[in-house]
């Protein structure tokens, strides 16, 4: 889960709100303009600004006497850490009546030297974040300098010297100083607002970036876990399919075998009707066996258990044997089957049985999806350089004049169990595995399979195979994609 609390959740100190450097600059400018020193403390007493003007020599002189030093230190700690209320020597400042409303919380603290300070709390959103100490200044109403409280600090106190030094301290009526301080307070509010905005946005920017990273990492982890789970499931599924297929195939072979024996009269003569029935059992059994075999194939492929065995082979023989196995079907359906071979025979290398299965699957589809009176054509190319593979190779093209395939389905038909028309009322049989096997075996040879088609006019599947497959070529297949929909949970 999240780490750490946001800056929005905590109290922000005055020091964080004020941009240190530019704040000091503003205070400096202000002090130079009005010739009165300013100190700013936060509510913990930490000093945020301290700009002096004019009083250095005078205070230094007073400070040089031990009693002066003692009294001075007491005054300084009064203004810095003492209460902002009207106690410990503080009194209400003398101010113009029209400043009264805004002067909330302002107090005057006299110094034993006759000089004066005015303090102002820094209020922000109902909190006191700190204070401004304005002074010391020389009040205009100060008549008899030095007052006894100053003179008495030492026998050696030199009035002439002190008078000369005190002249350098700004002299003004308290009302004037109070008004200047109010002006400064307004400036502070603006600076705090700007500072707050800057501070919060920078902090939030950092927090948001960290949060985003954390989020991404978590998502990645989840995706990885999900991916692993899917892979495991996939393996399980393939193992299951392989087992089931095997368990189905064994008894099915017996059913077909015994039917065959019956049909051939090995168990005694049958009449015409009986032979017909038994042949139907055999036919349907064969169809079922083929289906189970292809399911077994695809599950073996997906489980990564298929190893192709490459050996010398004859592409002429590949095409001819596939075509002749489809001949009865084409004839029965009234589809013309044509073969076109190159002038000279040539040799190649590959997994003969698997490639025969590839061409047979393409031919089965072509015959299946071509209506009566149509044509299916098989073309074998010569052995030439194949730019697509960047090596010597050949092509097998299976063309038909059938129903065709919409262009947006070209990729999908190679996924296992995908069919253009997958409705239960569809016209053509099959499980949607044939092309997935084709793709996987062809790619296992380092070849490619292409499709071109126009709906209503026909389809063309092109196999491009290398003459000498590299033994590294891996059998791989794109598993079918399942769309997962989140359940609706609508409030609006």
């Amino acid at each position, binding site marked *: *889960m*999240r780490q750490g*609390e*946001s800056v*929005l*959740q*905590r*109290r922000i100190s005055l020091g964080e709100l004020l941009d240190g450097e530019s704040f000091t600059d503003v205070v400096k400018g202000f002090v130079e303009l009005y010739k009165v020193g300013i100190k700013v403390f936060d509510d913990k007493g930490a000093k945020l600004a301290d700009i002096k003007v004019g009083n250095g020599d005078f205070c230094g002189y007073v400070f040089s006497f031990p009693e002066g030093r003692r009294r001075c230190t007491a005054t300084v700690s009064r203004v810095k850490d003492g209460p902002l209320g009207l106690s410990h020597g503080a009194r209400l400042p003398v101010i113009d009546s029209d400043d009264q409303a805004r002067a909330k919380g302002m107090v005057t603290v006299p110094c034993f030297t006759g000089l004066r300070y005015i303090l102002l709390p820094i209020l*922000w*959103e*109902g909190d006191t974040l700190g204070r401004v100490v304005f002074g010391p200044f020389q009040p205009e109403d100060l008549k008899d300098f030095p007052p006894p409280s100053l003179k008495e600090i030492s026998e050696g106190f030199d009035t002439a010297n002190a008078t000369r030094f005190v002249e350098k301290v700004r002299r003004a009526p308290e009302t004037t100083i109070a008004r200047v301080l109010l002006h400064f307070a307004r400036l502070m509010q603006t600076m705090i*607002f700007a500072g*707050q*905005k800057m501070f*919060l*946005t920078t902090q*939030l*920017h950092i*927090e*948001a*970036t960290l*949060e*985003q990273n954390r*989020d991404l990492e978590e998502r990645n982890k989840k995706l990885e876990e999900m991916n692993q789970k899917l892979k495991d499931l996939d393996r399980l599924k393939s193992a299951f399919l392989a087992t089931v297929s095997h368990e189905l195939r064994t008894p099915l072979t017996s059913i077909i075998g015994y039917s065959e024996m019956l049909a051939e009269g090995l168990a005694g003569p049958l009449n015409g009707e009986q032979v017909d029935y038994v042949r139907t059992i055999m036919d349907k059994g064969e169809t079922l066996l083929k289906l189970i075999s292809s399911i077994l194939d695809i599950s073996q492929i997906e489980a990564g258990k298929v190893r192709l065995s490459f050996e010398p082979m004859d592409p002429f023989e590949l095409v001819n044997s596939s075509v002749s196995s489809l001949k009865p079907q084409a004839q029965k359906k009234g589809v013309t089957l044509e073969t076109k071979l190159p002038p000279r025979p040539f040799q190649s290398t590959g997994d003969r049985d698997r490639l025969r299965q590839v061409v047979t699957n393409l031919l089965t589809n072509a015959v299946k999806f071509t209506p009566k009176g149509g044509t299916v054509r098989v073309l074998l190319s010569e052995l030439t350089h194949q730019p697509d593979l960047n090596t010597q190779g050949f092509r097998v093209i299976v063309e038909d004049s059938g129903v065709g395939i919409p262009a947006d389905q070209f990729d999908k038909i190679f996924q296992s169990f995908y069919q253009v028309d997958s409705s239960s009322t569809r016209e053509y049989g099959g499980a949607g595995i044939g092309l997935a096997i084709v793709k996987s075996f062809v790619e296992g040879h380092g070849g490619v399979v292409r499709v071109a088609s126009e709906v209503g006019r026909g389809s063309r599947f092109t196999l491009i195979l290398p003459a000498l497959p590299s033994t590294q070529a891996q059998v791989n297949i794109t598993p079918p994609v399942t769309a997962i929909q989140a359940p609706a*949970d*609508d*409030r*609006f």
Partner: protein
Amino acid sequence: MLFDGTLPDVQLNHAQRELTVKIVYYGPGLSGKTTNLQMIHQRTQPDVRGRLLTVETHDDRTLFFDLLPVFFSTAAGFKVKVKLFTVPGQVIHNATRRIVLQGADAVAFIADSRRSASAENNSYWKNLNENMRENGLDPAQVPIVIQFNKRDLPDTRSDAEIEEARKKGKEPVVGAIAIRGIGVLETLFAVLQSAFRSLDARAGLTKNIQLTEKEFLTQVFQNIDTSGTELERLFPPRVKPL
């Protein structure tokens, strides 16, 4: 919630005797969250509120959040701060939304009433629930008030349709035209009331700091100009000094 001593938080200085109530205005981009805060700001006495802090992009979209603090002291001397936040609506700012939502005591969900906005409203509603959980807030525990804003626009849902929507859940529903200030204070009232009730149930505000729901709401709304709203009778606007 920040409350005197019940949670280990720096702000819970016992000496400070302070309660912070955090309200978050949530919802799709441009649904009117910032407008709600602007209206509240306009109608609230300057001495009980801070400035409205908004951080916007150059095209007026909320970048991080808006913040309007409102504060007062209770009769028993407790400082109460109500902090109203908005979240940025744009999809890419989800991390910021989650941060702003941290520790919310109640949420005002500002929906765009137009029928065409339903899908967006739903997706932000889902996002709110997800982000609450991510923040360790129980969506069933944090009260939410729904505002159907922009009822002046064509294609807005009818009263009957809003009634339908109200029945779909337990959240209070308020209709609004925020740019004209309609429904804004009513929404604020509903969300503050739910926030108080939930805090009171969890932390016993009445018992522990002698703050009743009535005082809480009065302290806020007596400083807000309620004229022309449904709250006018409950909290009559003060006669403005000449």
